[in-house]
């Protein structure tokens, strides 16, 4: 049977030549749809934006830095309020069974892409009934963007209400992928606007061919791509929800790349000569946020002492099984401006005990909130809380573990008068340090995403300043400084960054782990 599969894979698909390079990716689930502006999940972005579309700017393959995409270049005005993009000429949208473009990509497509998300009265806003544009909203673009103007067919100007350096990184995100206005018009005219979310058209390296729900998604190479066409001719997503089964499929040669392995399978994968396990730190952080408004946790020395009492290495070894690394900073090491000079609080129960006594804290009892769900930055919060409980008992602190249903957990943990420290985490959206430091630790986030309820004027001043400067080196210096203040003040115990493991067939070449958790197949080839 194996032989039959191998043979037929070679000769397969739509009459392509026998030497065609076909890559099968065992994905973890079904995309919610194919319009990346409507969703926030990586599974959906893999199936749409990351392989089928381009943005004005794009993340460098495998990095968090931004490079030109459909915009060849851009200029920022001195006051930081105007971003002018020069668009690439001669870029073609996909020609498929269901759409044939009559014109090249131009400024109208850019305006269409953003107006349909931002303007509720745009005729394209509700092409998909019930559409809501979560990322556009959660990245605050409705408040930020004052207007988007077409200067000429190949020049577009974004005018902002306030300077915002992460703006460029935001535009590299999946939700900002450029769609075809001509395609949208055609669908509306045909009375089938909902197909915009079912049959994507983009300018990217692969063209969408078909989707069978919960089973398979097919793509074919875009030979008219504006860069070097992809090496892979047929790209297939075989949707395989069970991680152990994905591993079996990889072993049997039924796929060449698989998503999210079981940590328990990693040893077997590493010892298999036909499988390479690629590894990279994920763009996330898992933390324990104290409520810095609640005594005695309002004292930095108490928080520091508790940090010293918890054996993070043991937690990471025990819970992550090789899929995690101890965190010392609130931003992950793959992010620019990561301050590697920072020294972490050392695990030392004796010192912790002494520090608590010195701070006048006796017979402390506290609550630890444990999330009810698995996350890459925390695969087992309950177990983590129990390990912390045991560590804290050794320094005479009594900890009680509480939990709620996930939606409620997220809501309740925001409260400023919350009782106890919360286990939670964050996965980066745009690769910008502001997306961690301002969202999670800025004064504006108190009572919201700032679960430590921590408002430090010095820290807040620095990150606000950094947001208004567009020079990345200057910004990096400020963020490095902010991380020093963070460590001194210890509003969190930074626990772990996940380590992403991606098993691929040893025949696959040029594959890079995407720090945003995506799966990108441009630039990948298969050895014979």
């Amino acid at each position: 049977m194996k032989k039959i599969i191998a043979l037929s894979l070679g000769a397969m698909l739509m009459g392509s030549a026998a030497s065609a390079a076909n890559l099968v990716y065992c994905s973890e689930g079904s995309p919610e749809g194919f319009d990346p502006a409507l969703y926030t999940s990586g599974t959906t972005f893999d199936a749409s934006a990351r392989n089928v579309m381009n943005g004005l700017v794009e993340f460098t393959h495998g990095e968090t830095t931004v490079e030109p995409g459909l915009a060849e270049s851009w200029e920022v005005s001195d006051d930081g309020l105007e971003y002018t993009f020069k668009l690439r000429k001669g870029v073609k949208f996909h020609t498929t069974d269901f759409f044939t473009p009559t014109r090249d990509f131009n400024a109208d497509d850019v305006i269409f892409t953003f107006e349909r998300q931002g303007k509720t009265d745009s005729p394209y806003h509700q092409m998909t009934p019930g559409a809501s544009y979560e990322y556009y909203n959660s990245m605050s673009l409705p408040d930020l963007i004052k207007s988007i103007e077409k200067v000429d067919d190949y020049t577009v100007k974004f005018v902002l209400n306030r300077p915002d350096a992460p703006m460029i990184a935001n535009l590299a995100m999946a939700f900002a992928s450029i769609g075809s206005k001509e395609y949208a018009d055609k669908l509306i005219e045909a009375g089938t606007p909902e197909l915009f979310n079912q049959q994507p058209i983009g300018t990217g390296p692969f063209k969408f061919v078909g989707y069978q729900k919960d089973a398979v998604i097919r793509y074919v190479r875009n030979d008219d791509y504006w860069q070097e066409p992809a090496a892979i001719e047929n790209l297939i997503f075989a949707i395989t929800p069970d991680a152990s089964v994905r591993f079996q499929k990889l072993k049997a040669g039924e796929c060449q790349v698989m998503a999210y392995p079981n940590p328990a399978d990693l040893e077997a994968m590493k010892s298999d000569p036909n499988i390479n396990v690629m590894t990279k730190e994920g763009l996330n952080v898992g933390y324990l946020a104290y409520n810095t408004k609640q005594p005695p946790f309002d004292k930095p020395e108490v928080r520091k002492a508790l940090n010293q009492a918890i054996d993070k290495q043991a937690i990471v070894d025990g819970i992550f099984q090789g899929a995690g690394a101890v965190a010392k900073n609130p931003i992950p090491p793959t992010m620019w401006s990561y301050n590697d000079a920072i020294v972490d609080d050392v695990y030392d129960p004796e010192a912790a005990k002494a520090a608590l006594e010195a701070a006048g804290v006796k017979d402390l009892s506290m609550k630890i909130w444990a999330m009810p769900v698995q996350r890459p930055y925390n695969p087992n919060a309950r177990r983590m809380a129990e390990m912390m409980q045991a560590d804290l008992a050794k320094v005479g602190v009594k900890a009680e573990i509480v939990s709620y249903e996930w939606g409620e957990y997220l809501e309740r943990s925001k409260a400023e008068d919350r009782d106890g420290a919360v286990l939670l985490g964050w996965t980066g959206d745009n690769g910008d340090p502001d997306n961690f430091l301002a969202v999670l630790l800025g004064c504006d986030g108190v009572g919201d995403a700032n679960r430590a309820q921590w408002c430090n004027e010095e820290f807040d001043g620095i990150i606000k300043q950094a947001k208004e400067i567009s020079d990345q080196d200057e910004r990096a210096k400020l963020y490095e400084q902010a991380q020093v203040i963070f460590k001194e003040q210890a509003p969190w115990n930074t626990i772990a960054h996940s380590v992403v493991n991606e098993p691929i067939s040893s025949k696959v070449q040029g594959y890079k782990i995407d720090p945003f958790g995506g799966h990108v197949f441009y630039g990948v080839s298969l050895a014979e």
Partner: protein
Amino acid sequence: MLSFLTRRLLTFVPTFIGVTLIAFAFIRLLPGDPILLMAGERGVSAERYEQLRAQFGFDKPMWQQYLDYVWGIFHGDLGTSFVTKKPVLTEFMSLFPATVELGLCAIILATIIGIPAGVIAAVNRGKFFDQALMSTALVGYSMPIFWWALLLIIVFSGWLGWTPVSGRMGLMYFINGPTGFMLIDSLLSGQSGAFRSAVTHLILPTIALATIPLAVIARQTRSAMLEVLGDDYVRTARAKGLSPARVNGVHALRNALIPVVTVIGLSVGTLLAGAILTETIFSWPGIGKWMVDSIFRRDYQVVQGGLLLIALVVMVVNLIVDLLYGLINPKIRKG
């Protein structure tokens, strides 16, 4: 017969109303707000939250949401998934054939092995074959399906390489419709090897899914047969000098079949409601996994629409089973 059918169809009405109420209430009684779950760590502002509630219609009073739901049903509209933005009925119809195909194959396998096995065990009561069979059935019944399914994959796909690991069809075949049943569509497509591929993909999930019903059917057949074999008319048939095969196969089995058909009918109902574990492990695009995913996302429309459709399927299957009783035993028709 006709009045029987009419009476049975009339009982559908209260059941149907009950199901709409339960489906509607069940998903709303679960803690968890769909908008908060969708937003995750990122969260939504209070203002945006209200906006979304209004957009999805969650801000309306409960009774009005229920009436909207029932009103929709009468107009053939089961609502739209708030995740995929597709009509619930469309999604159901695209996934249901996969569930039916696998479920029917499993029940056929379970029946053609389970009934003879049960008969043979009963006839050889207490002997080695009986004991071996019944202990195997017990093992089959109590085995965790996810473990059993994975074991099948590791042995037959991994070590032996006889069957593909998962999926419904080899990726080299591009088959989409017209019936949604791969066994039929692959034949209709005329692509050489497609039918063979569909069959090989079906083998392991069929075995995994058939295991529990097979054990139940075998045990039920055995005990029903034992009961009947002690009856007077069987003794009479034997005394008349009929061959053992005829006594066991015709006189005894026919009467023993009633409880067995009940068990089979119940199993079919369960299998057509979607086999969550088997579908997940074998990447089988059926309705079981679809329902579970939707419950986790609190996708109200899909859950209440999907449950209703599944209930309808189960009711129809039960009706067919009742009609079958009449065929097997005419006494029930009159009663």
